[in-house]
């Protein structure tokens, strides 16, 4: 009788589909180990938060922060709710901001903050959020 060296696990159809997208020609073992490697590589990275004040064209200022951990997120401070929020398009006046203003804001982050000397990042606007992703797998420091 053949000895099985594998375990059968149960996953949702959605999870299996997501794994299949990453799988390509690899095995599921390889894909899952790659996921685990990434998780473990950055598990001990402490959260670093950089806060900035950004001046709007109307003369008012907005507070925002960039949080670096396993992912990079931008949040702005909503003074009405006394809360940090991540819907970056709503940060300007509570309504949608123009692409030009958002572009100016991103350029401000790149130019006026020193974080770009530490990280390699690309910006992409996805729905209402500024999506910051690392270029390849650049280390934090």
């Amino acid at each position, binding site marked *: 009788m053949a000895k099985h060296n594998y375990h059968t696990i149960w*996953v949702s159809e959605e999870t299996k589909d997501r794994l299949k997208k990453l799988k390509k020609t690899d095995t599921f073992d390889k894909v899952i180990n790659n996921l685990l490697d990434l998780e473990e590589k950055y598990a001990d990275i402490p959260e670093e938060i950089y806060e900035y004040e950004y001046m709007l064209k109307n003369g008012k200022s907005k507070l925002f922060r960039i949080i670096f951990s396993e992912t990079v997120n931008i949040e702005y401070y909503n003074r009405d709710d006394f809360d940090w929020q991540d819907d970056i398009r709503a940060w300007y006046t509570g309504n949608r901001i123009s692409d030009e203003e958002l572009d100016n804001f991103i350029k401000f982050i790149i130019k006026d903050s020193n974080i770009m000397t530490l990280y390699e990042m690309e910006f992409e606007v996805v729905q209402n959020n500024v999506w910051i992703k690392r270029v390849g797998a650049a280390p934090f420091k």
Partner: protein
Amino acid sequence: MKTLNIDKETHERLLSHKTSKGEPINSVIVRLLDTWEDFYGKT
């Protein structure tokens, strides 16, 4: 639900990432996938 066959070592690594004893393996994998997609973007 669907089945996946994985080797013993992979299974043990997944178990070590459970946040609680009763957490389903599927939840662990979902969490790993979310981190991957946050890092590299969705495929």
